[in-house]
């Protein structure tokens, strides 16, 4: 029944259609989930589709919109990737048998958790699979910004830019790193920073004495006291009402003029316009943003045109192993909920 639809669906490529037709029998046993779409740049790359298909029959958003009646009653789970599909009460109204919303990532700030709780729908995330990968990325951004790697590359390879032996960067070894948010990722960043013999300070709403002792970290209960002591500041907090806009004009003023700011958390943790001001007035030396408001920034946005700003397209978890692992983990949680079993990585509402 649903297979003819799959075989004619425009968002599934020819190769997948062939394989789908071969798997006809086994497909019909698998539960149905709703998810967004395939797009090599903006959504799932095609390589992850077979991972999902191990567990589920997939209803792509475009097909669901075109023919809700056909699928609505069968959909038992929603996989959310990159914030899509957006979970609204209108959507939930159409899905009487929905058991779980599984978001394929760490954050849950894009979900209306109260709404889901009120409807008795389970929620899962993937808070741990990509921790190493994101920590690697945090350090990569720190060292690349400190030592001006993008500028260096341009100098050596772009024939229009002079070859410059004197691109001088900021010392890394022995400098001080302030980590804002010492969760899974923040802790791993501390481990890597220590390999560079950096002095590591941290601020978190919860003090973590065991972690402090393990790595000889210095705790600051106040963000404002942490900032003036740091050569690098990296924000690694979830987006909550408390962390929303936590880095603004006052915070940038408290930082050293020579300091570099790195955000791998969520864009709204930073008051973006105030960051622009701070950079333009040289209140801080440089900034690195893996997340911006919006993503992507509009072409004329000042952040895209400042030489002391590095922007990257939200790639913290982007190793193949990590991304595949996140999809796999999300599917496991979704399956468990559908089968009425204990849900790994459940977000307790």
């Amino acid at each position, binding site marked *: 029944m649903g297979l003819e639809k799959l075989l004619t669906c425009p968002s599934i490529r020819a190769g997948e259609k062939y394989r789908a037709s071969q798997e006809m029998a086994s497909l019909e046993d698998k539960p149905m989930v709703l998810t967004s779409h395939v797009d090599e740049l903006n959504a799932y790359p095609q390589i992850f589709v077979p991972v999902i298909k191990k567990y589920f029959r997939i209803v792509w958003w475009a097909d669901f919109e075109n023919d809700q009646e056909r699928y609505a009653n069968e959909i038992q789970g929603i996989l959310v990737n990159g914030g899509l599909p957006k979970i609204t009460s209108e959507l939930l109204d159409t899905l009487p048998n929905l058991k779980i919303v599984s978001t394929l990532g760490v954050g849950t700030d894009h979900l209306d958790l109260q709404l889901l709780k009120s409807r008795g729908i389970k929620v899962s995330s993937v808070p741990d699979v990509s921790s190493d990968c994101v920590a*690697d990325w945090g350090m*990569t951004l720190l060292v690349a910004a400190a*030592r001006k790697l993008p500028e260096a*590359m341009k100098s050596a390879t772009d024939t229009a830019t002079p070859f410059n*032996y004197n691109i*001088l960067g900021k010392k890394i070894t022995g400098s001080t790193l302030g980590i804002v948010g010492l969760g899974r990722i923040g802790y791993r960043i501390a*481990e890597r920073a220590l390999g560079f013999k950096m002095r590591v300070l941290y601020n978190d709403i919860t003090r973590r004495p065991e972690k402090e002792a393990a790595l000889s970290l210095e705790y600051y209960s106040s963000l404002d006291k942490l900032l003036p002591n740091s050569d690098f500041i990296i924000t690694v907090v979830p987006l909550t009402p408390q962390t929303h806009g936590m880095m603004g004009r006052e915070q940038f003023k408290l930082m050293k003029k020579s300091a570099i700011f790195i955000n791998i958390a969520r864009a709204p943790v930073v008051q973006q316009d105030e960051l622009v001001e701070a950079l333009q007035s040289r209140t801080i030396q440089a900034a690195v943003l893996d997340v911006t408001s919006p993503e992507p920034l509009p072409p004329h946005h000042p952040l895209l045109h400042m030489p002391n700003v590095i922007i990257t397209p939200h790639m913290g978890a982007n190793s*193949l192993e990590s991304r595949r692992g996140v999809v796999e983990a999300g599917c496991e949680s979704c399956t468990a909920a559908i089968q009425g079993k204990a849900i790994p990585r459940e977000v307790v509402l």
Partner: protein
Amino acid sequence: MADKPLVVASLADHELYVKIVEEHFRVVWWEDYIKGPEKYNNDIQGILVDAYGRLKRVDGSLLDHLPNLKIVSTLSVGTDHLDLELLFKRGIKVSRVPDVSSDCVADWGITLLVGMARRIVEGVDSAKNPATPFDFNIMGKKITGSTIGVVGFGRIGYKIAERAYGFSMKVLYYDVFRRSEEEEKKIGATYYSSVDEMLPHCDFVILIVPLLPTTRGMIGKKQFELMKNSAILVNVARAQVIDQDALVEALKNKTIRSAAIDVTYPEPLPDDHPLRFLDNIIITPHMGANSEESRRGVVVAGVKSCIAGVKGEPIPNEVLPPTQKPGKLH
């Protein structure tokens, strides 16, 4: 001013160092020296040189004209741009700066490694360049838990390994000398006496050997074939440690995944060199020691040695004529 000894200096950017050098010496900068060497030749007692300035090699063509030269102080780790044999023969002292920039170079080696692994240059281009689409799916290579092969385990090599260990990388190393058990244990390092035996196990290979007859061209076609297809090569040593043409082939054919090189021959590469047009390479302009602190520290140390040489006092970081087996990489 007349009391200060005269040195000739060829340094990459002398404005950075003028104060430090002029505190102790009268200086003729290379660009001025070559306009009228006769004015200076008899008075020059020291040469300050690094690997970046206009004077590319200190050999007979210069030394023959400097009868009162006492010391050549190179503001670098390497000495391959000096004709050491000739200098020793003529009783001219030589000094270098082997350790001030070690941390800085180690930081840079790892920066290139992680930058290439996670494709940051492409990421920045994707986000900032309006001609390139914004791409959420630029997939990099796993770093945590991967295996790094460090070729050359001297001061810098060991520091690179310490940083890699911080990423929970498994450290393998090659050197003509083996470190102590304690040093190995500290970072979980495994010794290989043969580069060829080590290469097949590595996700990342980083070169940090001095340029010697035994290390020239040590990474060539055979070594690229021994490496994993998924491996990334990083060079913060000297360009000639790699067979550069073989590197081009290996990258074109995807015999290895990618490379990040801080050194090429020549520097810079000609505009039409194939390495400029590959998409699986990072090239940077010889900047291993490029933090302000490090560069300044190197000049201070080099000047200190030069003063000692001119005064006939014991010289810090003197490079002595070889009395031991050649090939020591520390």
